[in-house]
């Protein structure tokens, strides 16, 4: 919203104060002011009122005229002018030699053989409107030679306030409210609004008006006739133009002017079209043509202003084409109303049509303002068009009244909230300047919130703190640290685990941490031949490609691996991110935090890569939890998984996730020759595993015995199990030393380490244990090939 310093100065005397400083303070105390500030009229000088004494056609040009212009000096000036509207006796804006018009400095100028000693200017050239139809037609009775800036408010400082920062301030959507802030900031008096006395029309007939819907809070109206003025006063047009509004006609300009001044939107109907005003909604949808000529779909939730049963305007948004003021309109009905803010907001969204009026209504305007606005309108109307007549009494239906907001608090509350000392006197002065009724007695404050702040904005004590402190100035605060007791803070296990996992993967294994998105990318998955799996869906994603939430990070990560195949021949990536596995029993998303790792290699065999990944997970678990992992083969259930070597990962009886190979179809689409393996584990489950303590064992001082045993077996698991089953404290460890395949099948050689803490072992006692293990395995049809004592 653009604001005019001149307009603000109508209501508060800011003379002698630096306007730029005030605007900067306003930005820190009230609402954000955009960086660019416009100094209107600063590029205009030396323009005076001048009268055209004579007009002659230019002999060589159809367009140009030769003028003699009286600019108040001894001799008239010869001027060549191309404007179509020149006439003898007309007063216009004349730029004398040396004058500044925008970037042009006026100098004598040859035009088709004649020299022009100055220039007659259009409003557009002076930057005060976008009218370029001809030179200015000045109707005011002023002496020739009068500086145009003495006649009109061309010099002004215009600044823009970010609309977003006014969301909660319905009172700041007009210059009067802004002036109140400036008055409080500057410590000057806010002048009362100059309004007409409407009581003198009380004897006139009322308008036929009825609010039939609770969404209309208040509706005030008044009838007029005999408005003859078509063009608005120049100063009014300049202000509207500077504030970003196009000048239309006097009546439309006046309603816009009132809106920019008071924040109260108004609308004028042709009285013939609104003989009985009814405000209501309709049972069925219909189409309605607004005054911009657009047909709009109106549904049963949209509040309408009607003439009886015929809709004439969309309440709070825009008038209808049919009831617009036209050429033969003789009398008109002025509407000044307030409506339910949420309803206007919803209608605006439905109609996809936001207007200057609806923007204000959405903020919860003060219903107390409607009648004042009418009185102000009458004041300005009769001032600028002395023939205008009021032909009805003020008709005002006030259906919904906000409760008064009265707040009490004490000095201690203010001290506690601010942490600094602000005197009672300052508090009272500030609140009163902002329009609050405020009193204090023995440090106890009683405050009545003004109606223009009480629609939703100021409702609680804490809101009062804001009023006091923002005017006090946050820059003026003494700042202090908090006085709070000290307690140790224990780090969250899950968070610590997460950090440790990242460190191990990055620092020990040189993996790269990535981030991705929480949904399944339809297009990308399709390219890799990965199915988008059924899961919870977004209902309002603008991009259909991201509709379904992911249930695993693996496919998302495979898409990223595909993107990076040119990065290096070998690389590994990981992410700790979220997945959703459908809904739980309460209908809530079953959300999980997962660690996903993918290794990609063009140089390593798949088996080597697979074991690299398995060992990585084992190291992570050993390092953080001091525990081992176990694996359990499972069937592939997702399109990206290879049917073989898919294993569930367990630790301390808890299922953590799985490790596997990427399905050949997907893998080949990523890279024809590369090996790709993945693992995904649940970080929350991982965090739940308790950290096994380190159990220190004194190393034996006596020589131990190591025995190699070679078994015909496809798997190490049963051998390990048999060794565990032996439950022998003398066994200090087991290693796999060799795996080979010959004509008899696959053989696994393990080395068992035996030791006794207090004496030298005998071969016999060790062999007894070994024999037990061998017998156990033989029972499971796993034969010993050979044994060898080292």
């Amino acid at each position, binding site marked *: 919203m653009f604001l005019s310093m001149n307009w603000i100065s109508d209501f508060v005397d800011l003379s002698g104060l630096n306007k730029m400083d005030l605007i900067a303070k306003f930005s*820190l105390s*009230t*609402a954000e002011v955009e960086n660019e500030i416009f100094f209107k009229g600063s590029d205009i000088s030396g323009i005076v009122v001048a009268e055209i004494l004579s007009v002659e056609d230019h002999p060589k040009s159809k367009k140009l005229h030769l003028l003699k212009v009286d600019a108040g000096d001894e001799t008239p000036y010869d001027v060549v002018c191309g404007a179509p509207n020149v006439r003898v006796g007309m007063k216009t804006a004349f730029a004398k030699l040396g004058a500044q018009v925008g970037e042009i400095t006026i100098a004598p100028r040859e035009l088709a053989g004649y020299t022009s000693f100055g220039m007659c200017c259009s409003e557009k050239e002076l930057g005060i409107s976008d009218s370029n139809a001809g030179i200015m037609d000045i109707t005011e009775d002023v002496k020739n030679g009068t500086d145009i800036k003495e006649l009109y408010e061309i010099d002004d400082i215009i600044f823009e306030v970010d609309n977003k*920062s006014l*969301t909660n301030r319905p009172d700041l959507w007009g210059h009067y409210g802004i002036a109140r802030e400036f008055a409080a900031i500057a410590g000057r008096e806010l002048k009362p609004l100059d309004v007409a006395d409407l009581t003198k029309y009380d004897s006139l007939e009322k308008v036929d008006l009825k609010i039939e819907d609770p969404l209309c809070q208040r509706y005030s109206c008044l009838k007029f006739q005999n408005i003859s003025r078509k063009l608005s006063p120049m100063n009014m047009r300049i202000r509207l133009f500077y504030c970003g509004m196009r000048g239309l006609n006097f009546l439309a300009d006046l309603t816009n002017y009132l809106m920019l001044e008071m924040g109260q939107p108004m609308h004028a109907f042709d009285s013939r079209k609104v003989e009985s005003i009814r405000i209501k909604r309709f049972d069925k949808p219909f189409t309605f043509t607004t005054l911009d000529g657009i047909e709009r779909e109106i549904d049963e939730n949209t509040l309408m202003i009607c003439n009886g049963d015929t809709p004439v305007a969309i309440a709070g948004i825009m008038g209808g084409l049919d009831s617009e003021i036209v050429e033969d309109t003789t009398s008109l009905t002025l509407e000044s109303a307030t409506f339910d*803010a*949420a309803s206007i*907001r*919803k209608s605006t969204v439905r109609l996809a049509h936001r207007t200057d009026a609806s923007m204000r209504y*959405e903020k919860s305007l003060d219903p107390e303002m409607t009648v004042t606005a009418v009185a102000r309108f009458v004041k300005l109307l009769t001032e600028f068009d002395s023939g205008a007549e009021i032909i009805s009494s003020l008709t005002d239906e006030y259906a919904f009244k906000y409760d008064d907001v009265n707040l009490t608090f004490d000095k201690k509350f203010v001290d*506690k*909230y*601010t*942490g600094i000392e602000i005197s009672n006197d300052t508090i009272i002065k500030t609140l009163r300047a902002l329009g609050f009724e405020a009193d204090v007695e023995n440090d106890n404050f009683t405050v009545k919130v003004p109606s223009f702040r009480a629609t939703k904005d100021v409702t*609680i004590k804490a*809101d009062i*703190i*804001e009023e006091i402190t*923002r005017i006090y100035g*946050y*820059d003026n*605060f*003494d*700042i*202090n*640290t*908090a006085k*709070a007791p000290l*307690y140790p*803070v224990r*780090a*969250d296990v899950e*968070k610590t685990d997460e*950090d440790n996992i*990242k460190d191990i*993967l*990055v620092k020990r294994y*040189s*993996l*790269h*941490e*990535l*981030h991705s998105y*929480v949904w399944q990318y339809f297009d990308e998955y399709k390219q890799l031949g990965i199915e988008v799996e059924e899961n*919870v869906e*977004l*209902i309002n*994603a*603008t991009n259909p490609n991201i509709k379904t939430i992911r249930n695993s990070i693996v496919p998302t*990560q495979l898409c*990223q691996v595909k*993107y*990076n195949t040119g*990065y290096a021949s070998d690389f*590994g*990536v990981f992410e700790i991110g*979220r997945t959703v596995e459908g809904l739980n029993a309460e209908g*809530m998303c079953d*959300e999980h*935090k997962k660690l996903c790792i993918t290794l990609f290699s063009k140089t390593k065999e798949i088996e080597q890569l697979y074991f690299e990944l398995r060992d990585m997970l084992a190291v992570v678990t050993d390092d953080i939890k001091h525990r081992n992992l176990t694996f359990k083969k499972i069937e592939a259930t997702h399109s990206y998984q290879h049917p073989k070597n898919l294993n569930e990962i367990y630790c301390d009886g808890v299922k953590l996730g799985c490790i596997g190979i990427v399905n050949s179809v997907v893998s080949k689409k990523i890279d024809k020759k590369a090996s790709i393996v993945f693992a995904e584990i649940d970080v929350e489950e991982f965090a739940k595993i308790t950290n096994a303590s380190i159990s220190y064992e004194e190393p034996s001082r006596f020589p131990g015995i190591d025995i190699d045993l070679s078994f015909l077996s496809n798997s190490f698991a049963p051998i390990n199990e048999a060794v565990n089953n032996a439950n022998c404290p003398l066994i200090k460890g087991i290693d796999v030393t060799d795996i080979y395949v010959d004509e008899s099948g696959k053989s696994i050689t393990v080395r068992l380490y035996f030791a006794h803490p207090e004496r030298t072992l005998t071969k016999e006692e060790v062999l007894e244990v070994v024999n037990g293990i061998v017998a156990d395995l033989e029972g499971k049809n796993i034969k010993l090939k050979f044994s060898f004592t080292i």
Partner: protein
Amino acid sequence: MSDKTMEVKESFGAALSQVSTMEELEKLRVDYVGKKGLVTDLMKEMKNLSNEEKKTFGQKVNVLKNEIEGQISAKREELKQREIELENSRMPEFDVSIPANLSRGSYHPITLVQRRCEEIFKSMGFTVEDYSEIVTDYECFESLNIPKNHPARDMQDTYYLENGQLLKSQTSAAQNAIYKKYKDALVNEGKPIKAIFPGRCFRNEATDACHENTFFQMEGVMVDKDISISNLIFFMKTMLSEVFQKDIKVRLRPGFFPFVEPGFELDISCLICGGEGCPSCKHSGWLELCPCGMIHPEVLKAGGIDPEEYTGFAFGLGLTRLAMMKYGIKDIRDLNSGSLKSLAQFTEDK
């Protein structure tokens, strides 16, 4: 007979001078002082001598033997030394100017910035909280004093799910749960609530170099008796000076956020120009950095905390924005792209 010892001595001297390897030296040793060597042969010849002669000859042979053995061991040392020298000379000179092989992993830049912030807050006694990404309307809006139809809901385009939940549009969605988690300790044990909660947030909007639908924020709250605006400003200034590792000037402007009252927009003095005005701060000297404010009484109430007794402040920091500022990342989309060309550059950064 003494001539013979002289002969042997001379021939040994000549042979020794020819020796250049350990093997030759060993052979020479065997040839002269070995069991069948020339010196041993001389000993054997003694039996043909008279007792008188035996004595002088024997002495001479012994001297010769000792001399030869001494020279052999000296030669051995010399050869060893030469061998080491030879080995040393064979060692090539390395070219240390070739680029180092930095086979290393990388952290996501958000992790780096987040860790830095966490460290600062932990040092001030804050707990670091994690929270789910999918939340309820209550968590994200209702409990934060944003009822249905509140205009503030227009400010953020939220991703809604078919079951009525939503992708959290702000880290504030964790506030309610955090208040409930710590309120008993606050009330019963007098432990102030001091928590930060970094997290991923989502907005339903089109992406470009400056806009992402998925980004990271970090929110922080402190609740206790007598927490004031003065504390808030102090804290923000201290914290941000730590984050940027220089003395930061801050200023507060009124800002409207339903879950704080009063609410502020906090600006910091421009990091590039220090407040003089430059293109990156649009010549204002200030950068808008984070929203903050005193926690709204309704929000405390919803968290089970009595706003008459306790006050607190809350603030939000855009981790994504911080990371972009810190590392000069120009396109926000690079962060979630998975592109290793970009992301592999971020190593530990303390």
